[in-house]
């Protein structure tokens, strides 16, 4: 038997269940009205649903209910397989996620080939990637970044949860090649002296 929930938790629970989109705390507060400690209610809900077949999760600052990952084998829908992504699209998505904000030229520098027209379109159409302003640099190139929908789709609470992010950062693999080489040169010069 679940613990009898308080009114605040009930309201937040109903709002999250009913919503067609993930909701931020502010949006939840908008629905359940003033005087509800939404953060506190979400904590209690998470505890209540621990170990159940469904539960509330936070993705990119927004909350929604979803099924437990270990039940995937029951629920996977054979007929509608998710959109096939080309290798180019997967790599481009990874580059944007790990380097954001990143310009098209920077993506191409890492991949060693030009991005074909449709690749970014596919990622933007899926709602995973968005234009993220222009860089204040010659040519003012447009940059790209990932979205809250991206985090939700891949089950990431925030970008910090990107797999291996810290390791890649520590290894310098997320810095431009030239930046690394400059560091190396400076170091080797220091050693030479």
């Amino acid at each position, binding site marked *: 038997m679940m613990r009898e929930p308080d009114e605040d938790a009930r309201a937040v629970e109903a709002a999250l269940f009913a919503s067609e989109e993930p909701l931020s705390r502010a949006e939840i507060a908008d629905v359940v009205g003033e005087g509800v400690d939404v953060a506190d209610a979400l904590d209690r809900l998470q505890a209540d649903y621990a170990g159940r077949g469904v539960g509330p999760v936070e993705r990119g600052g927004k909350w929604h209910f*979803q099924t437990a990952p270990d039940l995937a084998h029951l629920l996977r829908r054979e007929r509608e397989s998710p959109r096939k992504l080309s290798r180019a699209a997967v790599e481009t*998505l990874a580059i944007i996620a790990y380097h954001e904000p990143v310009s098209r030229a920077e993506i191409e520098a890492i991949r060693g080939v030009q991005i074909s027209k449709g690749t970014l379109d596919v990622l933007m159409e899926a709602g995973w990637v968005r234009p993220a302003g222009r860089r204040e640099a010659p040519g003012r190139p447009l940059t790209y970044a990932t979205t809250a929908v991206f985090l939700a789709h*891949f089950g990431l609470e925030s970008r910090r949860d990107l797999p*291996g992010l810290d390791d890649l950062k520590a290894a310098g693999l997320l810095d431009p090649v030239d930046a*690394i080489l400059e560091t190396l040169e400076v170091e080797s010069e220091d050693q030479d002296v």
Partner: protein
Amino acid sequence: MSDALDDFEMIPEVPSPETLTLELDGWEGPLDLLLSLARTQKVDLREISILALVEQYLVFIADARALKLEIAADYLVMAAWLAYLKSCLLLPREETEDPSAELLALRLQLRLQRLNAMREAGARLMARDRIGRDVFARGAPEGLRIVRKALWDAELFDLIAAYGALRARAEPAMHIVRLRPVMTLDEALTRVERMLGERLDWTALEAFLPETPDPAYRRSALASSFVAMLELARTGRIEIEQEGAFAPLMVRAA
């Protein structure tokens, strides 16, 4: 990981040299091909022998040419560059050389590492519990609706003013002719006659007009004075002369 592979078309399996010669179309550019060749060395990318890799690439391109496969230009450019790199690496190092062959090799190695890192990151992303494949949102949410209800803003005055304006529009319009300041013909005749008594020489018509800031009154005075002069000329009391069209109209007593 196998799930991830279902989901996008392919990460090429580490290819054997034979398959390489047949699948030039499968590579996304020279860097992609180089990375796949590097993987055949079966060592950490940080440990690979660039010299061996260059050799692998050059052999691959040579094989492809022998088979008369069409090779895109960028593969050949890379081949030329790698041949240059190879010769630099083999020659004794010159201190003045800039950039050094070692630096070029390191740059290539870093680029391969970076591409490889992103390729693996992409695969790990695809392997996560994804919405709609591994985890599911509520199938039939009721939906939240915020119904914006307009609170119409109208005052009684707006209402009656609108009605008044409507009725006014519908009433037959009453036209009032505005009283305008004018100089009558009689006034002009009297005035011109009086002034002609004072002037004997040719005088421009404008000199007969009264000083006024009102342009409408001035126009009226001009028209009336002109007609008055025509009348005086007709009765032979004055002479009128004009040198040409739009030239000043000159008047004197006859």
